[in-house]
């Protein structure tokens, strides 16, 4: 793979799930975990050339602490070729519980193509307001910006398109913007808590298991 005296690096996309105990690995910690996994697996990855050399890893949209992810994505660069199945097997042998690689291949889309993400939200809630909640027109989320300001975001357009699971009233499947102007589904949970408070007159903490099912491009196709 040598050309003009320099290595041509082969870009590889690794898609994996992050479930169970692994949902409590933060994004920063996930990067460290993956760095070490790549080292344990002896995958011939390219190291950055700086003072602090480390394997080059590039993650698609970070996943919030506490969320599960079914189809997360991480790019590496190879300095020597290695078959995709090999990379998958080697990584799966050395990854901690809850992290499983399910696809390795050359990237098709660019990271900046990510525009949405599809989430499954399982509400642990006996209040049964979910079906009304998603039909409401004026659900507003308050998002704190980096400058500490609060910005109001209209959630209703996304909620109105959400689906409630056929056999379970508390399961919501919805698509939210991701990548550029990201809306974190935790904002939906907060908005729902406020909604329940309005309906019942008391604040009830609502737990919600959140799983990111897929990253999507602007056409709604899965990120590959």
């Amino acid at each position, binding site marked *: 793979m040598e050309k003009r005296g320099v290595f041509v690096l082969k870009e590889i996309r690794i898609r994996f799930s992050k479930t*169970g*105990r*692994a949902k*409590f*690995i*933060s994004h*920063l*910690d*996930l990067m*460290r*975990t993956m*760095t*070490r*996994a*790549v*080292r*344990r697996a002896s995958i011939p990855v390219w*190291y950055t050339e700086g*003072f*602090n*050399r*480390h394997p080059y890893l590039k993650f698609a949209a970070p996943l919030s*602490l*506490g969320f599960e992810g079914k189809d997360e994505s991480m790019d590496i660069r190879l300095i020597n070729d290695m078959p995709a199945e090999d990379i998958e097997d080697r990584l799966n042998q*050395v*990854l*901690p*519980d*809850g992290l499983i690689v399910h696809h390795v291949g050359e990237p098709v889309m660019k990271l900046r193509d990510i525009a949405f993400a599809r989430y499954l939200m399982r509400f642990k809630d006996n209040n049964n307001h979910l079906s009304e909640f998603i039909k409401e027109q004026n659900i507003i989320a308050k998002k704190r910006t980096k400058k500490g300001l609060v910005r109001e975001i209209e959630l209703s357009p996304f909620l109105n398109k959400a689906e409630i699971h056929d056999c379970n009233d508390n399961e919501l499947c919805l698509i939210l913007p991701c990548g550029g102007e990201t809306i974190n589904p935790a904002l939906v949970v907060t908005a729902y808590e406020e909604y329940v408070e309005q309906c019942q007159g008391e604040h009830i903490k609502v*737990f919600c298991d959140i799983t990111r099912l897929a990253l999507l491009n602007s056409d709604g196709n899965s990120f590959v």
Partner: protein
Amino acid sequence: MAYNLDELLRMVQKPARYTGGELNSVVKNKENIGVRFAFCFPDLYEVGMSHLGMKILYSLLNKQPNVFCERVFMPDTDMEELMRQNSIRLFGLESRDAIDTFDFVGFTFQYELSYTAALNMLDLAGLPIRAANRDSSHPLVIAGGPCVCNPEPIADFFDIFVLGEGEEVILELIRLYNSHKEKGYDKTAFLHQAAHIEGVYVPSLYHVEYNNDGTIANIKPRGEAPATIRKRIIGDLDTVYYPESFVVPFIDIVHDRAMSEIFRGCIRGCRFCQAGFIYRPVREKSPEVINAQSRSLCKSTGYEEFSLSSLSTSDYTKLESLLPMLLEWAQEQNTNISLPSLRIDGFSEELAAKLNVLRRSGLTFAPEAGSQRLRDSINKNLTDNDILETANKAFTAGWTAVKLYFMIGLPTETFDDVAEIISLSQKIVDRYYKNPNRQKGKGVNVSVSVSSFVPKPFTPFQWEPQDTMEMLEQKQTHLRSLLTTKKISLHWHDASTSFLEGILARGDRRLGDVIEGVFKRGCKRDAWSEHFNLQVWLDALDEFGLDPSFYANRRRSFDEILPWDHLDYGVTKKFLIKENECAHNNVTTPNCRQACSGCGAARWKKGVCLS
């Protein structure tokens, strides 16, 4: 409504402290397990997970098919509050089972200020904190680590203390426990028998009587318990168990790297240093074994850095042959080697060159005292010239930052000795600017860290009064007043924590009530400065009629019975007295390789004592 653990984890900072499931953590099928062991570190996950002793014993215990060892750490305040509100007892990270049903609950004590954290952990586990209130239905609560060389202040809370190195004795203890379990375990019967294992101290089998002045009249064993309890040591470090893998944490911990132990003990005999006496004699691991172990650790963890662990890296006699072996594969794998505890006088140009190949880690020296007179007195055999020459070499090699560690409050110290901390630091700054080969265009930074001396058991200074807080604070003020340049940055430790350490380090059993008392008044995290509150301790001491200065600031006579006199760490009292007298006469003692000074550790006929 009570929340479950999964829900709690979403409400706390750094939930990965409590989830377990890290790579290389061991989860066993509980069906086939005879002994469940909770290895407790009385501090946060990030601190405990950095501790090598815990990694060794965790792996060793889990290597036994019959034993399941789990890790337990002190939860942070947010988690503790939620656990108490929701009736979740302290659990093992591996199984998430509450530890009050385990067979053993074992603590390691690396510092005295973690005592109350251990009581809090017992309480969070739903266990009675006093050993006398736990019967055969409770786990055995045991402890080890350097602090248990004087475990008397916490004697009321523990069933067993394990003295010295744990690899062999812990298995002997478990074997005995298993045999008792087979015929029907009875705690009292077990403890009586366990007391006969070398290194096992059962505090309830000893009775302490006091004189009217508060000193000890006698320490008497009950029944058949041995009169003195001798620490355990490992004879051969090449064959002793060492883990092939470490648990790799998700979150960033204090020392997040692989560690290879290169030797135990220290040849130096610096008179203030407890580790230099209680781990004698020096025993080295061979370079081949270290190389193989380092390599397998890096392979199994994926760590990008490993360090060589010992009390004084440059005293390892085969460093020059070890480093090339390590470098050969470490460079190829982009793995950094770090060499902590590198002593000033062992720092050769060659070594500097070899280190230079690797990432430039900080250059750290520990002169401990500013003046030559005081360095002689504490037996830190090191001259101004050694320090300056070494620093100069480091500057030539490209270093621009030097870290210096000093102590104040050492026995015989005067304000002039204290002032020399600053003058020595200034000399280092001057040497930098005189060095024509220094890194161009960069200033020098000499970081000076000044801690307060705490006299410790089993050192020649065990009889010495500790400086009062007022004296320590005066010396700190003096240091600050002498500082005239920004090239030197000065850091000092809070004198009040050193004072409490001084009380606990040489305390007796009467402090048990005090420790329980402060715990009940909310002291649980004394080792964390933001939670430390000396006044609560002083009030409790007062309540039980005890005088803090009796423990910290009093000179003991050589013939006083010390609270730890029934414990035997190898070094004899005769030797420590001789060393104390040398200190007062500013006379140094040669290190173990130059000449044997007859400390008593030669009785084991191991390591450096053989040559």
